[in-house]
């Protein structure tokens, strides 16, 4: 799992990697002359939930399927909304509190579509894409990391 978030060539940027998320590049990728509305969602690992402290989370994935599902969701979104550009990047491994674990971005001609598609994508990613968070695995990897997973 040493792959990084390679720059995209087409209109979608989809990725899964252990590197910190390239947030500024993701935002820049969405901006352009044909999209009037750009909605960017960033999910961050919260340190505090009430009085309970979370130092960080570990994210595990069935990586080949997760990428395939992310591609499928992106294609679905593009049939439902007029998507100009799309970003869907998820981080794996240890993510410290305060760091971003996921970024979802949509560029559409109008803002209502950008908001709706972005919301749909993050909601659907959470239920459909085989990625799991685990607080107890943070900084305690006991299973072998498979180099062929991506």
């Amino acid at each position, binding site marked *: 799992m040493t792959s990084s978030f390679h720059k995209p060539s087409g209109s979608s940027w989809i990725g899964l990697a252990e590197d910190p998320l390239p947030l500024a590049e993701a935002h820049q990728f969405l901006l352009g002359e044909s999209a009037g509305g750009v909605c960017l969602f960033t999910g961050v690992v919260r340190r505090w939930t009430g009085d309970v402290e979370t130092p960080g989370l570990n994210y595990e994935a069935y990586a080949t399927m997760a990428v395939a599902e992310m591609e499928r969701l992106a294609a679905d979104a593009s049939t439902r909304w007029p998507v100009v550009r799309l970003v869907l990047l998820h981080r794996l491994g240890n993510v410290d509190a305060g760091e971003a*674990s996921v970024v979802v971005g949509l560029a559409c001609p109008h803002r209502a579509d950008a908001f709706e598609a972005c919301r749909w994508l993050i909601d659907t990613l959470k239920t459909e894409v085989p990625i799991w968070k685990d607080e107890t695995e943070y900084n305690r990897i006991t299973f072998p990391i498979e180099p062929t997973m991506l």
Partner: protein
Amino acid sequence: MMAVAASKIGIRVNVRLFSVLREAVGVSTMDIEAPVGCTAGGLLDQLAAAHPAIHRFRSHIRLAVNASYVSVDVVLGDGDEIALITPTSGG
């Protein structure tokens, strides 16, 4: 017909476990022999009978074959990769 053939010739499939199932069963992958004509649901029955942890999570498990979600009645082929997907929690 299938059931008769199944008892004669087996297929080999690879089972993938993640998250709570990997922790509970203690392995992340298993090579399993199954009868020809075995469905994804049939394999899950077999696994649940052999592993109490899989039995315990059974009602929450969705099945994927070769990296796509499938229904329980899909028939497995030799060399298929079957993943047991517990509720996801990405994001």
